[in-house]
């Protein structure tokens, strides 16, 4: 291996690592606020990339129908819940219609615009909007009524959600894979190492977004409310922070991060309906190694995971997945040596 190849592998690893970092941060965030270990994070990645691919083909993306179905079920759930709780019909109707508004507007806009020739940025925005709108709906459907369940039950629910979403992705996007065109075709050169424009875009976007998250959690009221929920749910509730709202907001962010990652990674690899899972899991590996607790930790580990993956694909390409996922075991073992008896009673 010479320096050029090493450089190329490093660039490759770091760009993928940046995506894993985004997804890892989302995993840490969702776990911290809701105690949900969000396995289906990767599904949003596939949804994002495939939605954009459909728009590029002038088709109405399957995400539109999925979003509408989810919104309708949530509306039904809300309406029935309100009637059962004894609310007057008018009020029940309002509560049922409310969750429909944003999904129907986004879906309507998408259906109307899809057949037209659109500039790239508008397709990107529509894709982001469609997938992001699913986040809070998913939280309401699968998790909200189980908020006080143990992390273990929530984890099994997550696996169920992953199963369902993968099947639905196959139904709505079909079995074909897509590779989106690069947002920026430029080829750059640093020393002897070639870097393509897409890598730069991925890296810069991921970094900007991570800084934005940092700002959001450190300096905005919403961000602080989420952090409060993460530290102590009951305390936050007493301060007037709704855990429902916190959960929905977190899932909105998680869906957005997933979709964004999907748009970024779409031009570098072929995405199928079920590709998101593996991509998401690598961010997940980073989050777990960082202890599901530290944002900077997840960021650093994610870049490391990207690098390990890149270099192991050079030396032992068949075993790169084996190596990446096996990384988790020694990390957990190290962590387990610091477990003491007082880590109980939570």
């Amino acid at each position, binding site marked *: 291996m010479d320096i050029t190849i090493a450089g190329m592998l490093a660039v490759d690893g770091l760009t993928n690592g940046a995506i894993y970092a985004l997804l890892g941060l989302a995993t840490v965030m969702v776990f911290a606020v809701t105690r949900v270990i969000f*396995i289906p994070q990767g599904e949003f990645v596939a949804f994002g990339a495939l939605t954009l691919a459909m728009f590029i083909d002038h088709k109405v993306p399957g995400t539109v129908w999925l979003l509408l179905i989810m919104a309708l079920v949530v509306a039904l759930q809300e309406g029935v819940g309100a009637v059962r709780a004894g609310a007057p019909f008018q009020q029940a109707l309002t509560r049922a219609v409310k969750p429909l508004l944003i999904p129907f507007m986004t879906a309507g806009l998408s259906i109307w615009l899809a057949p037209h020739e659109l500039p790239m940025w508008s397709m990107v925005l529509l894709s982001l909007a469609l997938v992001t709108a699913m986040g809070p709906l998913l939280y309401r459907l699968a998790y909200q009524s*189980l908020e006080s369940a143990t992390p273990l039950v929530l*984890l099994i*629910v997550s696996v169920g959600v992953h199963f369902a979403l993968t*099947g639905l992705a*196959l139904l709505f996007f079909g079995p074909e894979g897509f590779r989106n065109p690069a947002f920026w075709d430029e080829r750059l050169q640093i020393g002897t190492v070639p870097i393509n424009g897409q890598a730069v875009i991925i890296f810069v976007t991921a970094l900007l977004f991570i800084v934005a998250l940092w700002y959001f959690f450190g300096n905005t009221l919403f961000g602080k409310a989420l952090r409060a929920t993460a530290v102590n749910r009951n305390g936050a509730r007493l301060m007037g922070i709704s855990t429902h709202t916190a959960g929905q907001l977190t899932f909105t962010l998680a869906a957005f991060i997933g979709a964004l990652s999907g748009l970024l990674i779409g031009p570098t690899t072929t995405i199928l309906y079920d590709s998101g899972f593996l991509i998401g899991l690598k961010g*997940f590996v980073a989050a777990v190694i960082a202890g599901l607790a530290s944002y900077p930790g997840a960021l650093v580990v994610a870049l490391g995971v990207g690098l390990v993956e890149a270099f192991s694909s050079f030396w032992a390409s068949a075993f790169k997945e084996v190596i990446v*996922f096996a990384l*988790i*075991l020694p990390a957990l073992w190290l962590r387990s040596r610091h477990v003491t008896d007082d880590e109980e009673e939570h």
Partner: protein
Amino acid sequence: MSRLRRYNLWVVLAVIVLLSLLPLPAFWVAQLNYTGLFALTCLGLVLLTGVAGLTSFGQAAFVGIGAYTAAWCSLNLGWPPTVTLILGVTLTGVSAWVIGRITLRLSGHYLPLATIAWGLSLYYLMGNLEALGKYDGLIGLNSLTLFGHEIGQGRGFFVVSWSLLWVATVALTFLLNSRPGRAIRALKDGRQMAEAMGVDTFGYKVTIFVIAAVLASVAGWLMAYYQRAVNPSAFGLKWGIEYLFMVVVGGAGSLWGAWLGAGVVRVLDEQLQAWLPQLLGMSGSFESIVFGVMLVLILKYRPDGLWSWVQQGLGKTERTRDWDDADVLTQRTKPAMGDVVLDVQKIRKSFGGLVAVNDISFQVRAGQIVGLIGPNGAGKSTTFNLITGTLPLSAGEVYFGGQPVHGLHARDIAKRGLMRTFQHVKMIPEMSVLDNVAIGAHSRSKGEVFSAILRRNRGEEKSIMAEAERQLKRVGLGDWIHEQAANLPMGQQRLMEIARALCADPTLLLLDEPAAGLRYLEKQELMRVLRQLQSEGMSILLVEHDMDLVMDVCETIVVMEFGTYLTQGTPDEVQADPKVRAAYLGTEH
């Protein structure tokens, strides 16, 4: 074990024999065969998830180890099935032991995450190794042949696989209904209570993890010969999840839930795979949508799975009282009245900069009830946790019966006869009062997993039950022994905890706020029990807020405030002490 339950096992065996004689169509024989294979893996998962609270998504990987060992050894070395079974089980057992040692110390959700990771890496490993035929796998195995008989793929296979399933179920039933079984059940709600009863929680976690893996491995061995081929797709994460799904659907709390879940999911899988693609007009594995949604719905509305319905119909069974002739468990030699039992010397605990317990010293003598009181936040419970070894000491020494016990594990201190109760009752709610109390006798008995499975523990089990019943009568719960622990009112749950502690034949009893939340009559009953225990020579250290109770039963009272020692003396002396009044009521300025 009750007669009815034992009878149930025989009914199931009779049904298996009957099924093997019926002229079932080949399609249904195949469904039954797969159900048997899956249920075998699910049994282990019930033990892990439902009983002990450890979730694994990686069981499919263990099935894979068993299957690949069988396939590779019989194709390349021509080894017979019996040999490949032994080898496969050994390999799986060792891998599970290693993985278990690495991951089982972690709390809660880290284990399932680790299982996801190894499930994936093992899948890619199987799929990329040249020797294992990469993603195509290994093909061309012979059918299962045992002792010269070809078992084939039909009815014969049904008999073999379901017999194994039945034997495994019987073995696990015996196991769960024994000393190690109660310890395993105690793992579910954290390890504090179990450790305080002298249970080596980590050891049991590794043990059941290995048992579950071995069951999966046997299923894999059967699967290899049944399908006469192996390939990685049956051992990936998707299947790991599906096994867990079966268990959740069937009911993770019962071994029969594994049978039911495996059957229901197998049949559903088959039907959905046939119908959904027709319905939707395209091919693909859409059954995952139904399964995913079902999983979420079941966890929401029927978290105990489908078996809980059957269980309601069957009604509850009571343990038969068969221990009248039981030997008495060995008792420790007790210290003479007035000897120092517990000697606490300058113990200290600091959390970072905060000193929660600051150089506290006191003694408890045999036959004495000592009260430890102080306003909220005085460090009483922390002192308790330091003495019992639940928290490590920052400094100081604790002598129990003249021996140093500082620095020992909670369970080793418990084994020496220092037993405790908890501020918030810790019990196994779904078990009977009698079984809950029997956990207390853990450190006084020896029966382990193998003797339980082979039923060589009957004598000891009888002795344990006799002891548990005796202690329950001692605290006045003799009429409640068959009740489900969760159904007891609070006061009686606390008495049950005392009986559980007494079951260990302790020298010293540590009671953490036993009167918290009790009604007047319940409190009277508790006081009666405490005085009676004292009259029988028991030494008791009591943390309590209820002053009536403390002043009434204690001979000596130690007062703490803000982690420091304030004073000690008789109830009258303490009540008269201005420092104590100031601590509780504030000082006049």
